[in-house]
């Protein structure tokens, strides 16, 4: 064989863009089958109607959408879900930020140990962790017993919104910490020292230098936690005790208990729209930061 043929073969090869397209094809196919197709199905289902008896009427109408969007219960449900998720996101951010800053500044073996501690909860199912919170928050739980020992009347910490907020915040913290850490790349201690020598107090330094430099990480963490919070099901179901009504639990009830699939599908589509809105907000925030 003639070795001079080699360059010719290379010239016949694909352009880098074409190679990238081919490499992306498998995941695009998986996404189309595993994500897009079910979403299209859901959209189709939301256009069906449901009889009072629960029987499914195969049709194409916006009746379910109209009912859902005019019903004060579902509207309140959507508003509540957004509000609670935003509150949990904010709480997660406040609780995670100092930990992430400390982790960012630690080094060596200590940093590895801390990172493992942060990631470890992610290796446990949210169900198990939620049951852990039940053991802590229930009426005979750790907190109640501790308060009782001091002669204090324990507040209700479970089967209400308080329990859901506490549980979800802890469950989402690892995600927030990891997102914050990934966004702390620009934070060099020299910037803080420069601010200090220029006359900025530690508080001013934090507001004017540290916070702006960590904004991209905060935006990413908030997006991630908001999306996870609004779509979380296990924790609100178990810690809410059926008394906290959020979108995810309602979708479950409609689909499994009431068997009203069109309403469940419509609510699912609304969650998807909220995801889109959160993503758009994140993109805009990121552009403003940069």
């Amino acid at each position, binding site marked *: 064989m003639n070795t001079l043929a080699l360059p010719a073969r290379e010239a016949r090869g694909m352009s880098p863009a074409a190679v990238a397209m081919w490499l992306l094809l498998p995941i695009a196919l998986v996404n189309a089958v595993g994500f897009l197709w079910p979403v299209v199905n859901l959209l189709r289902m939301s256009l069906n109607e449901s009889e009072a008896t629960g029987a499914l009427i195969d049709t194409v109408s916006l009746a379910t959408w109209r009912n859902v969007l005019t019903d004060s219960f579902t509207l309140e449900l959507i508003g509540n879900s957004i509000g609670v998720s935003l509150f949990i996101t904010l709480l997660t951010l406040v609780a995670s930020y100092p930990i992430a800053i400390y982790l960012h500044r630690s080094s060596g073996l200590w940093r590895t140990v801390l990172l493992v501690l942060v990631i470890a909860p992610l290796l446990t199912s949210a169900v198990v962790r939620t049951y852990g919170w039940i053991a802590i928050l229930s009426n005979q739980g750790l907190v109640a017993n501790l308060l009782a020992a001091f002669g204090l009347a324990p507040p209700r910490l479970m089967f209400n919104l308080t329990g859901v907020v506490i549980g979800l915040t802890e469950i989402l913290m690892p995600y927030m910490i990891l997102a914050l850490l990934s966004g702390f790349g620009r934070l060099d201690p*020299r*910037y803080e020292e*420069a*601010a*200090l*020598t*220029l*006359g900025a*107090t530690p508080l001013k330094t934090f507001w004017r230098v540290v916070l702006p430099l960590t904004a991209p990480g905060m935006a990413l963490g908030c997006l991630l936690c908001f999306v996870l919070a609004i779509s979380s099901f296990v924790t609100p179901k178990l810690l809410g005790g059926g008394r906290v009504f959020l979108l995810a639990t309602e979708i479950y009830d409609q689909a499994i208990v009431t068997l009203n699939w069109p309403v469940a599908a419509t609510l699912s589509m609304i969650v998807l729209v909220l995801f889109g809105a959160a993503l758009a907000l994140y993109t805009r925030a990121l552009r403003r*930061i940069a």
Partner: protein
Amino acid sequence: MMSIRPDEIQGLKQAEGFLSLRGLTRRYGNFNAVDDLNLDVAKGELVAFLGPSGCGKTTSLRMIAGLAPSTSGHIVVDGHDITGVPPYRRDMGLVFQSYALFPHMDVARNIAFGLEMRKVGKAEAQERVREAIALVRLSGKEQHRPAQLSGGQQQRVALARALVVRPSILLLDEPLSNLDAKLREEMRNEIRDIQKRLGITAIFVTHDQMEALTICDKVAVMNHGRLEQLGTPLDIYEHPSTAFVAGFVGRINRLAGTASGGLAEVAGVQVAAPGFDGRVEVMVRPHRVSLSAYAPPAGDDRYALAGTVARATFAGDILEYEVEAGGVLMKSEAATRGGEGVLAPGTPVILSWHRRDTFVYAAS
């Protein structure tokens, strides 16, 4: 400002300089990063902290800036003990080796930051930022982000940001080490010009002896956390007080010898070594050693040594010979002149140098 008059502190010598360090020490466990540093810097002086990495020069600077705690000792500025004062109340301008410009602010906002923290009025702040930008010749770059600037330009912004607040002392931490050689020389002279024009007291930390010798009024040579010598560049170079200073500042021949009765014997030559006894190190700079075919005339104040050329290195402007003489290798170098050849290895030569260029130290 929390301040104590230095004379109120027991056992503290009266501060003599505008900036005085008294027994400044930084200890990490058993290791003294900075060990009992005593130093006076007069107003308007540019003083270099020169030494190899790990000698404590940067730690000293950080203690002066208030960014690193001192284990013991005092820092006195203009009669006020500022040892315990936090960095944001110290009124120092610090230029970092990495510049540390705020990446989320443009040039003008970076420079204005210190004025904002000092609550300077908007109109005055604007005027002062404009002046500072003009001072470092960056007019027109006000809206640029640090990432859009070259290393030299970032360096200028860092300098303007430190100077715009009119600090009592300007601290420069290896400000030129991230620049290429040509720019380094240009910036070095520019820093000196600005420092002189403003009459500002400044500390310049560097490991580069050229920077220290060329632009500074005084050089403080440090090693292992201790001050080896403080003096003018001429002092440091011509009268190094320790073997370390002689070896660190400029190139030098180091010869081991033994001294007794005021004379040291090195490589077969008797060198005056008054006050020394036992093992000594005799040093002479290569460019003060001349090389010739003949011995110097008798009675001349020169030491002479016969040897043979071991290696010749031609570097264009300088010709360096390594000469084997009396069992040691000695370097001699001289500026090249036209019409001169290079001696071949093995050529017999006579090395000679002036008595006053000979340094003798007790061997460590």
